[in-house]
């Protein structure tokens, strides 16, 4: 788990925002969901998740509140701000365009 992630630059932020967009969630849950949803393909050193979260909070894309969890413990819950949502939509769209373009290129048949 401590091996370096091969995630392209900036994709970790995109993934975090997507997960947070589903509803207020704390850091540990984000880490769990990242692993589950990506079927363990995306492996992020958990420690480096927090600087990313704090950076997004700094930029005003995420907001955070301290709330109680189901087990009654206090945890920091992140949620998407309006600016974050706009950013997520813009980045999702451009990601889709990029992957589509790359897909087209990779599927080119070799000319005989």
């Amino acid at each position, binding site marked *: 788990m401590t091996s370096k992630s091969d995630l392209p630059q900036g994709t970790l932020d995109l993934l975090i925002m997507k997960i947070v967009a589903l509803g207020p969630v704390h850091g540990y849950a984000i880490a769990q969901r990242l692993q589950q949803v990506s079927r363990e393909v995306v492996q992020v050193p*958990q*420690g*480096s998740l*927090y600087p990313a979260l*704090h950076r997004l909070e700094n930029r005003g894309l995420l907001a955070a509140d301290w709330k109680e969890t189901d087990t009654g*413990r*206090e945890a920091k819950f992140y949620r998407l701000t309006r600016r974050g949502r706009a950013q997520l939509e813009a980045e999702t769209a451009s990601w889709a365009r990029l992957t589509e373009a790359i897909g087209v290129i990779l599927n080119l048949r070799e000319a005989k």
Partner: protein
Amino acid sequence: MSRYESRLEKELRFHIEQRTADLIASGHDAAEAKRLARIEFGGLEQAKEQCRDVRRTRWPGDLWRDALYGMRTLRQKPGFTLVSALTLALGIGASTAIFSAVNPLLFEPLPYSKASRIMTIWYGGAGGAPIPQTFGTFRELQSRSHSFEAIAVMKPWQPSLTGRAEPERLDGQRVSAAYFRVLGVTPALGRDFDPADDRLNGPDVAVISDTLWKRRFAGDPAIVGREITLDDSLYQVAGILPRGFENVLAPEAEIWSLLQYDASLPSPEGREWGHHLRMIGRLRAGGGVDQARRELDQIARTPVPEFARSPIATMGQGLIVNPLREDVVRAVKPALLAVVGAVILLLAIACVNVTNLLLARGAQRRGEFAMRIALGARRGRLIRQLLTESVLLSLGGGALGLLVARICVRVLIALSPPGLPRIGEIVINAPVFAFAFAISACIGSAVGMIPALAAANNDLYQASRRVTAVHRRTRRALVVAEVALSLMLSVSAGLLLRSLQRLFSVAPGFDSSQVLTMQVQIATFSRLRGADAQHRFFDQALDAVRRVPGVVTAAFTSQLPLSGDSDSYGGHFENDNDPHDDHLAFRYAVTPDYFKAMRIPLLRGRLLEQRDMLSAEFRPVLINEAFAKRKFPTQNPIGQRVRFGPERPWDVIVGVVGDVKQVSLAIGESNAFYVATDQWLWADNPLWLVVKTRGDAASFASAVRSAIWSVDKDQPVVRVSTMDALVSASAAQRRFAMILFEAFALIALLLAATGLYGVLSGNVAERTREIGVRSALGASRAEILALVFREGMTLTALGIAIGLAGAAAATQALVSMLFGISRLDPITYLGVIALLALISAAACWTPVWRAARVDPSITLRAE
């Protein structure tokens, strides 16, 4: 712990605890779950530090925290902090002060509109030397030249202002009507001079400065148009100049009146043809200096009948056109540039020292940096921290530097030689301060970061080795630079010091000891009208002075050596081959005892005698030795006939006297001639009184003055001084430069000594282990002493070699300031080298002594 820190801690702990709980739930035992959770998470402190970093970029308030931390670190090392801040302060302060002082002279334009168009126009004398203009030449140029919008001539004027308040002698100028137009200044009140008034016997009008208006006339606007009494004549005040008007041609002048020479140029030998006027002109828009020079050359070469020229103003050597600014600063420029060079060296030395201090400090903190990196601090974080500290240090140094600069400027003004132009304009120059501040701060910060940059490498062992190597190299470079820079500065200072010694050992040609001098003027013409009445007053005054107890002898002279006077006349000898040969010579109209009072030796013939004073058949003159050698290298000058000034019967040379320095001690022998006061063309007024006394000359001042006033109490007596004071004042500019250089060299030596000590002792401290090993292996104390000492002195020798090359080049800028010695004077160089070697040896000694006492067992334990 701050709120942020506790929350960060809580958030991360929650993560790990939650993970541990999940792992336990999936079947791990508690201890194992805890371990796994920790491993999965990765470096906790690193994550924390990264989160802090994210936050810091957001909050400028964090800068404050960094600053507080920085201040704490600086306070922990008060010695380091104080020395660094003081070094910076000296460098920044001195350079700011010097640049502030030279800025108005060397770099700023003169305070006039389109000042670059104002030119000075000199008459080309023998060998192309610039000499003053004549009114006749002015008349011709005014009509014939088209390159100038306006041309004006001027001469000094010192009228006595009388009236309700006590009489005062003013400094002023007699000018032609366009003077203020050339400068581009119009009176703030009243009017400028009317060209129609500038004629012989025209109306007496005056323009006064704002300061005179405020001082004497209480700033009353009604003074315009009213009359004031100057030298017993009534002058109408035409205008008052704007406040802040700076008259660079005569900074002391407060009052101006018209020249009012006879435009018809009645006699080719009259005052209209005397070379005693300065000329300035304002170039027309669109015309350049070169164009004006060509045109004036053309005019000089082609006389026209309408403008007949006097034989003593034929413009045979053309005219010399220079921008006014160059003319104003020419005399002081070499000294100023030399001082600028010195202060740059000083700033460089200060930078070297601060670099050294920061380097040493960085080395001490290597452990701290390594620890912080191990705990997850990032490189950027350390750099920011060090930058904050450097900036704090620089701010402290800068604030102190501003204080130093203010003191320096005040001292500079107090020490400045008389006649330094634009002295009133010297103010702390903000851009220069910012520059000096920035350059030392930048160097300091850059150097301070070296350890952080190297320490940020992952491999701590490698890092510390690399830092050591970088340090060693930098240290050695610093020793060499320190020695080289100090050598350059000290050699320059030494050369100036020796020049001044030489200069003061130059015989001025007279004996200045126990001689009191003062200027006596006849201000009230109404009672003493006419030359005879003037001569009578001066004779009576002389008698009265001679009767003062303690006075050995007393005499009058029209000009006094080293007083700033420079009154020359062209001479023609009967045996000149070319009737247009013009031998320019200083004119002294003296009473016979002058030579006795000044102890000027008679070399041939006889001196002037009392009977010559009234002699009508011929006018006896004396010439000086240099003149006699030049003109009569083989003949006997006695009995030769000569004529100075206007057409009149020949004068006869009756004697040859010793040479006297008139303008400055440094200038070689000029021609001079002496006539009796009442045999010159007019009665000179004022005259210099020269009194040889028994005992301290200065103490006779009031007795002598009273004696003069016992003849007539209304005549001003001014510029009282001893001859000794005049002699030392004449070298004031050199002394000024020398004092500055001595001060810089002293500071530089001090900085170099502390710097060398710091560098060398630091070097030894870093080699403690090596020395310990060496002595454990049996090296004797003497061998260790030699090892460390040799290294220090090798570096010093290298620095000296580089410094010598630098000094040989740098002293070229000093050549015009030197007197009587070569810029490569071996005694100076050897002396400075010896001094620096001594300082170096002393700086080496303490660390060497310490090195020799290193106990091998301590070294081993330290490992």
